[in-house]
């Protein structure tokens, strides 16, 4: 792989990623073949950063890795765009969020089974970008689907101390069956 190719792959991956990418993640791009060394990656990243020296985006390194960031000299211009009223989330988005809140940790497939409709990537991404949900692991079944859960930010934004405070949760959710509690020798209230 030529140096240019390496740079181009890193450039595309960094622009495709919402979060900063670590050296570890950048190496994953290459699968099992011809994985560049950390030294090669750092060299290519430095050269890439140089390419963008005079542009409106910068390649910078933050705690968790590398990312492209719009130069803050553009802030006054970007601020002009933001007089719009806040939008509304679709019913599909709200139902997906509700499923994750009440059923976490849950996979997309499980949400689909209850909703009866495919959950599209955009909805999950919107909620992730909002900081309300996150992937907390993978289920060890075919395809290793991501397990989704709500975040502390979700609780904060909804003014909750814990998920138990979600209204009507008691009525909506089937509590663990009494006989399970009995089996465990625990008083079920």
């Amino acid at each position: 792989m030529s140096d240019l190719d390496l740079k181009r792959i890193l450039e595309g991956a960094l622009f495709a990623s919402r979060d900063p990418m670590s050296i570890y993640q950048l190496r994953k791009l290459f699968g099992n073949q011809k994985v560049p060394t950390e030294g090669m990656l750092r060299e290519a990243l430095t050269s890439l950063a140089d390419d963008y020296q005079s542009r409106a985006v910068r390649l910078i390194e933050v705690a968790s890795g590398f990312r492209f960031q719009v130069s803050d000299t553009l802030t006054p211009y970007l601020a002009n765009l933001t007089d719009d009223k806040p939008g509304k989330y679709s019913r599909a988005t709200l139902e997906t969020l509700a499923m994750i809140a009440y059923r976490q940790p849950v996979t997309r497939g499980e949400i689909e089974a209850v909703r009866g409709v495919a959950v599209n990537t955009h909805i999950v991404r919107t909620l992730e970008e909002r900081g309300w949900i996150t992937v907390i692991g993978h289920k060890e079944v075919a395809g290793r689907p991501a397990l989704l859960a709500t975040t502390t930010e979700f609780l904060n934004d909804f003014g909750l101390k814990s998920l138990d405070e979600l209204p009507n949760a008691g009525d909506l959710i089937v509590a663990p069956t009494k006989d399970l509690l009995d089996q465990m020798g625990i008083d079920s209230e």
Partner: protein
Amino acid sequence: MINNVQGELRLAVVEGSPLTQLPEDLYIPPDALEVILDAFEGPLDLLLYLIRRQNLDIIRIDVAEITRQYTQYIGLLEAMRFELAAEYLVMAAMLAEIKSRALLPNPVSTEVDEAEDPRAELIRRLLEYEKVKMSAEALDVIPRVDRDFQIALAKQPDFDVGAAPPQVHISELVLAFSELLARARLSSAHQIEWEALSTRQRMTEVLMKLKEQPELKLSNLFSREEGRAGLVVSFLAILELVREGLCALVQAAPGGQIYIRPVRQDV
């Protein structure tokens, strides 16, 4: 006539030698029948397939031959007791009608209007359906966002006056969930036993901890301050995580420390 064909096939299946009596190009291993039926999007799709197999122009289809193949196929499916959509039988009847008309001597005066000619109508429908099929295939190869390419994004500088993201009131969330439950209850296929929310939350918390630290002492997951209720919740959460195959418990020796870890660590 259809009954006749079906009768032959059914009989043949009972005798265990149905396949030799089928046209060569119609032979489909019985195991594959259901798969193949799934592969067709309906009677028009099946017909198109039969026509294309003969390398025929739709305009010049030999209705008699196609009818024979189609009804035999349908008959075979019925004999195998596959649930057939009514559309397939309607098409069989239509084909039989066209075929029987074709067998009649040509009327001297064409009283039948071109528009009412069922053969012309069938050809029109086949051509139209083939267009849709082609356009669906063409649509699927267009590079599509998220499948074939990604949007290029750079992080915005943080500034205070950012457009407010949509606000959601908690009541909207509850409403969305109860509607969802009401709808799910309508379809009896989704009778899912759900644990108490506190258990689900604890499951999330355990997974979060395991994300930071891939192996934990089980005892670290219980906290004295939470009391008995907290202990029960933690215990249920751990049982559920193990049952769903999300976590494994490991104990090196009887009576020794029990550790909890994700089922697979691929990092």
